[in-house]
């Protein structure tokens, strides 16, 4: 494998992000409309088909976490009356806004021309955009994605979403951008999206091999970044995923593992499945705790919040609005608990994992409420004991390194002991 090739996808991603944020900063002077939306259920192809630029506040919040700025932003939000008890993403975002709204690339984030509230399995989304509407005094449109309470997308729910797209979302985008809906432009973007999605799935599924050429959690949160944010349905997005896939396939052919904070992890002692979001404030430290022990993550649910492509979904240019409804409905946050359990069990079996870990974050009821039940059920169905750690996404006060490290170490010892005892 050539290092130049390995680095190329990372480089590409960096360039894409930098130029997107630079363009966002100039958006007001260039008269480019800006639409804010959330990762799960983001309608980025539709937004872009109107010539608008997407902003995803969760991505800004997680980046603030990684750059160790979220602690101050959260403090600022709490100072102006936001509760300690609620999602820290929201507070990080509000704090960033009140501190000058300088985003992850060091550039100014423009104010939204429209808040596209895609309500996809997280209650906080609703409040987050109500709060931003207060701050920005801008229009908002609500897109209600019915929750898959019974584990399936019901036809009348799909119809309801289609009607909202036609009768609410598209008119709101038309008004905000001054452009008419152009279905051809949308189709083109959906074609590009599907192509990138194919590449991503090949990357995700490469982890079925031994050694796995990717880390399906820590590494994959980078891999899903472009597709879960501003770059689905763009030529740059396709280029990124084609490059990434080539790199992963090269590693696979060479029998190499992913690059971790501890270097290349070829000797993979443990294969894990992970449920729950990462702790962005301590991302590398957390990853290192795994890499130090020779543990690779082969699959994770968090990397499906922006779409469950590995179960077959692709954006379909032949059914442009229907496919958007299907997409939103199938995002991980919109799935009920039994479906989440099925997914984890399937990952454990298909990826031949010998353990699973739940990182339960204080911020997020959408993920966390019910995770102890998930733990129990997955253990029951797979016969594999799981590990449970608690932290937070971007609130550094809730990451206790010593506790988590101890917990992980004893978990790996337990897996080892089971192997020796012939149980696994």
């Amino acid at each position, binding site marked *: 494998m050539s290092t130049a090739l390995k680095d190329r996808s990372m480089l590409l991603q960096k360039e894409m992000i930098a130029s997107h944020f630079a363009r966002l900063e100039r958006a007001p002077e260039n008269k480019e409309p800006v639409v804010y939306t959330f990762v799960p259920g983001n309608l980025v192809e539709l937004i872009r088909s109107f010539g608008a630029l997407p902003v995803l506040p969760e991505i800004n919040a997680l980046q603030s976490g990684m750059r160790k700025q979220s602690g101050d932003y959260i403090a600022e939000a709490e100072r*102006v*009356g*936001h*509760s300690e*008890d*609620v*999602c820290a993403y*929201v507070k990080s975002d509000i704090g960033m806004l009140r501190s000058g709204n300088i985003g992850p690339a060091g550039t100014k984030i423009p104010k939204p021309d429209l808040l596209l*509230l895609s*309500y996809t*399995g*997280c*209650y*906080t989304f*609703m*409040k*987050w955009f*109500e*709060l931003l*509407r*207060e701050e920005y*005094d801008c*229009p*908002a449109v*609500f*897109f*209600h994605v*019915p*929750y898959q*309470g*019974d584990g399936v997308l019901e036809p*009348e*729910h799909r119809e*309801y979403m289609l*009607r*909202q797209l036609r*009768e*609410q979302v598209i008119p709101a985008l038309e008004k905000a951008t001054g452009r008419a809906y152009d279905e051809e432009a949308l189709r083109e973007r959906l074609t590009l999206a599907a192509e990138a999605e194919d590449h991503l799935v090949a990357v995700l599924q490469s982890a079925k091999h031994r050694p796995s050429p990717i880390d399906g959690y820590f590494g994959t949160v980078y891999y899903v970044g472009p597709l879960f944010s501003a770059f689905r349905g763009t030529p740059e997005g396709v280029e990124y995923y084609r490059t990434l896939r080539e790199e992963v396939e090269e590693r696979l052919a060479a029998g190499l593992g992913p690059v971790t904070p501890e270097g290349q992890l070829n000797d993979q002692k443990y294969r894990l499945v992970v449920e729950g979001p990462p702790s962005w404030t301590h991302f590398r430290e957390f990853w290192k705790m795994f890499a130090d022990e020779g543990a690779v993550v082969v699959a994770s649910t968090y990397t499906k919040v922006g779409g469950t492509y590995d179960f077959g979904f692709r954006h379909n240019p032949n059914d442009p609005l229907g496919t958007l409804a299907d997409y939103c409905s199938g995002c991980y946050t919109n799935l*009920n*608990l*039994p479906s*989440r*359990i099925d997914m984890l069990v399937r990952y454990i079996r298909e990826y031949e994992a010998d353990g699973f870990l739940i990182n*339960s974050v*204080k911020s997020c*009821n*959408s993920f*966390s*409420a*019910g*995770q*102890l*039940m998930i733990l129990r*059920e997955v253990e029951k169905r797979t016969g594999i004991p799981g590990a449970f750690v*608690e932290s937070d996404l971007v609130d550094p006060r809730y990451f206790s390194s010593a506790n988590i490290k101890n917990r992980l170490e004893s978990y790996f010892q337990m897996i080892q002991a089971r192997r020796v005892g012939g149980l696994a």
Partner: protein
Amino acid sequence: MSKRAEIVEWARDLYEDLDFTSVRRWLDVHPGRKACGYLPVYAPREVIHAAGMLPVGIHGGGDRLEIIRGDAFYQSYICHLPRSVIELAQSGRLSMLSAVLFPSTCDVIRNLSGIWKLLYPDVYVRYIDVPQVPDPEAAADFWVGELRRLLGDLSAISGHHPSDDEIRSSIALYNDVRGVIRQLYALRQQRPWDVPTEELYLLMRAGEVIPPEEFIVRARAYLGAVEAEPKRPRDNSRVVVTGAFCEQPPLGLIKSIERAGCYVVDDDFLLGNRFVTGVVGLEGDPLRSLAESFLHNEQRTSVMYEGDASGKRQLMRRRVKDAGADGIIFAAPSFCDPALLDQPMLRAGAEQAGIPCIAFKYAENSGQFQQFREQAGTFSDSIKLWGGGTAA
């Protein structure tokens, strides 16, 4: 015992009975009938009733339930309600429910519906996803579809498939229920000394576990008793309590607020019982009428999307003005997303209008009320000293 005291004691017994004996008794004397539970906040009780089932509100275990099993299901940073609900269920206290509805209140209740499916596969579980969009037609069609499906499912369980007229009767009955609740609330607003919130609250709680027909009779009797036994007004301040629509505050907390010198003149305790503000029409397709009334509802609450950009800022001013209140107590359950995420917006609007506010958090099992009492007492005193909010 006075008539009023008699009714209040009857309600208190129901409130304190964590075994839902009244529900079990109802099932005993109505062989073949079924009961359907619902969690906070809004569930269409008319539909449950029309299907011939007894609607039963599940509002947690308060401060009277020891949590033995529930904590194994929830991390410490999740509100208390779901753990006490699980405790009630795992201890067999909810075993008489053939169906349980989980309204779209928040992610905790949403995910609890999945837990229920896993723990109790024989119980009918439905997540009640109400329309959040303002567009009347798509939303109305969606909601009618949901109601129809719910009615079909519940009817299959109960074996009773109601005619349109029977559905209309259930709708009319709940119009009456809300009517009498509104009367009680209006009376408390006018003469809070005559309708102490502790009493009103107990009556509302009783209404969650008894048939609506019986509730109407008791509530009217209470209204009559109030007129027959007027009390003396005190020099209290008048407050709106908000944020307590899901996990309920312990009764001791409500009493503490009152004893600290605050008349509660508006609140959102057990909000689901009066969620729909209008009278549901009895003409045409009854489920469509029910759906339309939901969409034209004037209820503003944290659990629904606010379509009006200035809505959050205006809401507390309006409520204070309507209630003739002097100030607001934001009382939210710890870790409650809907209440706590809304609070900065609501409070900013109130404070801009010069309305005095205080805020505290509670859990349904909070045991120490001293601090609440002191806070509410100081608040009441300062209102008396400096004047309350006169929302324009």
